[in-house]
């Protein structure tokens, strides 16, 4: 019998209770893992274990895939029309809304982000994403193509089948909604692996998915490790597509496994080292605020973080001064304090990685302009950090740190800064600040990135596509574009008179 996690939140930001089954969710039931092993869930604010959840093994992947296929052939796939899928997704969104505070609290407990951010952004955006895709479910259109009057030629946009989805720990619930929404809206069945670091909200969602009325097997959740469950999903012969958000390193492994197994379709949302270019003619105060949001949002744990901040020389000193003051004002504290801006990093592993990068910056001769150290003595807290006096070849300039560490770089020449901005294997996002519309748009158009922000950073909407150029990924999520990730195009050609 799988166990139950019960927790009482008694904090300034939130008071409430949660209690839910922590088993794997397969074929509409909560079960233990095949090996009956568990994974510890750690609260990064304290470093202590809060509960254990069931661990899935490779065997459980097979069981889940079989259940998903059965559902696809009988109760889901093309057996459930778009209007039906729409209704269930809308119901799920409604249930998420009813439990929004509980979900936000679980997210803050598990991930370390503040309850306020989890409420105002993560859960709100996740609900909106599910609602948005509920609206697409009955609008999956193909085309009729004109060939000649003796033939009827048309396309069907069919669901792919059973899709594997592997999501990261930085925005657990939000990433779940970005994957679940379009896949279910188009009629696929899902085998999902949440991050072993942050499984709680995904597990809690299973009860809501069940209550909403999704048929057993349409959605299956396997909490497990990347090297076991993640690898099994990407190499599975009976999974027809895998979608992954995470590091570029792991993204490669997934693409390799897909190639070596059954050439399954892949979409990848990977890392970034996104440039934020601030010209002399920017609105300086706004640029400062946005730049801070660009790197410190979610404790720097965002794939699209504007981590390389290029500032034109004319405003460099003033920018740095104001940006430092702004950064200093960001309060690092307990996720459940109402005035905390930034909580702990998600895990010890991440904490160590970031501190290593900070050390490498110091070793390679960069200046620690602000921060660069731990905050407090308990939990994985790092002070917002600013590096200056860097050179392009430094690790902190080239590699993705994934922490609250910004690099501020002075530039002179417009051509040169665009070259520097594009001189990276990544291409997820970029931002440009200028009040000159021609300069702003021309720069945005020349930046090799999947999202180019003009006078803003880190803004996302459920109907605007998001994804990477180059090694930042393959494919686009959100918007109508995400539907393409989960549909197989079939051309039907009906002969009505050609004689052979």
């Amino acid at each position: 019998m799988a166990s139950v996690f019960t927790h009482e939140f008694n904090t300034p930001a939130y008071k409430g209770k949660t209690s839910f089954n922590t088993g794997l969710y397969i074929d509409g039931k909560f079960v233990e893992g095949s090996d009956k092993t568990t994974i510890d869930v750690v609260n990064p604010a304290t470093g202590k274990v809060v509960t254990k959840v069931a661990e899935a093994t490779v065997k459980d992947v097979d069981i889940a895939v079989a259940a998903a296929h059965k559902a696809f052939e009988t109760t889901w796939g093309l057996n459930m029309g778009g209007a039906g899928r729409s209704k269930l997704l809308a119901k799920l969104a409604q249930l998420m809304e009813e439990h929004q505070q509980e979900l936000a609290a679980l997210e803050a407990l598990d991930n370390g982000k503040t309850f306020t951010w989890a409420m105002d952004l993560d859960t709100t955006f996740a609900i909106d994403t599910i609602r948005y895709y509920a609206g697409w479910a009955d609008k999956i259109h193909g085309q009729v193509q004109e060939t000649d009057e003796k033939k009827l030629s048309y396309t069907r946009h069919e669901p792919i089948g059973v899709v594997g989805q592997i999501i990261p720990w930085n925005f657990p619930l939000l990433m779940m909604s970005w994957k679940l929404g379009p896949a279910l809206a188009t009629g696929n069945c899902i085998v999902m692996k949440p991050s072993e670091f942050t499984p709680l909200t995904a597990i809690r969602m299973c009860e809501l998915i069940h209550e909403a009325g999704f048929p057993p097997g349409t959605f299956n959740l396997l909490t497990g490790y990347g090297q076991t469950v993640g690898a099994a999903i990407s190499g599975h012969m009976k999974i027809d597509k895998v979608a992954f958000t995470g590091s570029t390193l792991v993204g490669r492994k997934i693409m390799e496994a897909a190639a070596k197994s059954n050439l399954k379709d892949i979409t990848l949302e990977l890392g970034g080292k996104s440039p934020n270019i601030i010209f002399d003619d920017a609105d300086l105060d706004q640029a400062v605020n946005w730049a801070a949001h660009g790197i410190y949002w979610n404790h720097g744990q965002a794939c699209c973080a504007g981590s390389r901040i290029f500032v034109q020389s004319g405003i460099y000193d003033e920018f740095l001064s104001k940006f430092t003051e702004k950064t200093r004002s960001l309060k690092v504290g307990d996720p459940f304090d109402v005035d905390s801006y930034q909580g702990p990093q998600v895990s010890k592993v991440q904490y160590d990685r970031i501190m290593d990068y900070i050390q490498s910056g110091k070793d390679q001769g960069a200046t620690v302009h602000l921060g660069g150290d731990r905050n407090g003595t308990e939990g994985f807290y790092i002070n917002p950090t600013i590096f200056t006096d860097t050179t392009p070849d430094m690790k902190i300039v080239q590699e993705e740190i994934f922490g609250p560490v910004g690099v501020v770089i002075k530039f002179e020449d417009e051509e040169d800064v665009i070259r520097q901005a594009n001189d990276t294997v990544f291409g997820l996002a970029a931002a440009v600040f200028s009040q000159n519309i021609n300069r702003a748009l021309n720069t945005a158009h020349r930046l090799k990135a999947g999202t180019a922000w003009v006078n803003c950073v880190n803004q996302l909407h459920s109907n605007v596509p998001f994804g990477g150029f180059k090694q930042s990924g393959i494919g686009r999520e959100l918007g109508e574009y995400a539907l393409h990730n989960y549909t197989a195009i079939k051309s039907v050609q009906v002969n009505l008179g050609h004689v052979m």
Partner: protein
Amino acid sequence: MSSTVKIPVPALNKEISVSTGLFINNEFVPSVDSAEVIQCFNPATEQVIASVVAGSSKDIDVAVAAARLAFKTTWGKNVTGWERSRLMNKLADLIERDKQELAELETLNNGKPVAVARDFDIGDSIQCLRYYAGWADKITGQTIEVDNKSKMAFTRHEPIGVCGQIIPWNYPINMWAWKVAPALAVGCTIVMKPSEITPLTALKLSELVVEAGFPPGVINTVPSLGSVGGAALAAHNDVDKIAFTGSTITGRKIMEAAAKSNLKKVSLELGGKSPQLIFESADLQQAAAWAALGICYNTGQDCTAGSRVYVQDSVYDKFIDVLVSTVKETVIGDGFDNNTGGGPLISKAQFDRVWGYIDAGKAEGAKVVLGGERRNTKGYFVDPTIFTDVDSSMKIIFGPVLSIGRFKTEEEAVALANNTTYGLGAGLHSTDASQCMRVSGLLEAGTVWVNQYNILSNNVPFGGKSNQEYTSVKAVHWNIGEKLQWPLSL
């Protein structure tokens, strides 16, 4: 200041209350300058059930001003797609909550059976609102490559503005939803004039508009005579678009008024004299069932009613037999009676019109193979009537009166079908796929049904064959598995 009436429902021993003022700016108000009222009848009993305020052309001015203000301040470009979606979904939820009572009110005023009103009319209306709610945050334009150095070109799909909407009496709630949903989804504001024969459910739905949380002025409801309120809307210089469903005669007047005033955009859903073709390879049992549905559904008061059926010579006699025995099963009666499949005609005027056609048909020598006899009871009941050997009557009857003709060849069938100024719907029954494809391509109608009839979906376009820009959109519904049982089991 508004008044509420309580309308008794004798069959169910209850009362339904309805606000009877003009619904403007989220309030029910009296007319600014008129004391006229509109009397609403129950077509099954011929009794008056309620009186509502009749709007004057000055009231239309007030409503249009309210809609314009809302468009400039709280709606139009001032509201996000997400918010429009949220409100529309909320409205759909409320209609679902109140569907039983709304159905009973619809039956009282329109006559159709309660179960049909609830499960079909209102069921479809809820789905329609939800469908368009899903579009509200997906109104996209395009970026267009001109040259990549000096220009950035893109399109925005912006709301038109204040829309006048005039709806008919045959599907009061359903037509309300079809008009309101897409207009709201894209951000337009509305002045709705429901039919003067059936204004009650539009008023009741207006109460739900308030409860859902729409800002004042987004939807306004002004019951009024067509010649007063309808004409005022069509000619109004501050209405940006008029959408009308009703008779072709009135449609012309509206288009004229639009042309003479401010060249407002016009969309019209008008009449039809839709044909069904029965080919010799057809499954005759099924074809008969669909033909029965085509003429009996909503007691023939449907713009796409399949009122002309042409049967291939070789199966003519057999088909007539099957058709008559199928249509015979149709029960026309009081909408509150559970056994009723179809209600009375909507009004005395329609009743007299339909009987006029039946009498004329008999006088011209057409053969009556079913019906054609008056009842001796109260209520505007007309039993299904089938004429054969008809000399191609081309007038729209809008009642359960079917004309049957015959043809030899496919070419003849298509010519007979297309020999009309109308082009709303058409149906064909055949198991020869190539024939289905050929004939559906040749039929000049906005919707062609293959081995089916009358079944629509919210996500499939519907309209008459008329020139919009440079292409005409034809929707083809090709049935590949649904079997129909007539009468419908409700």
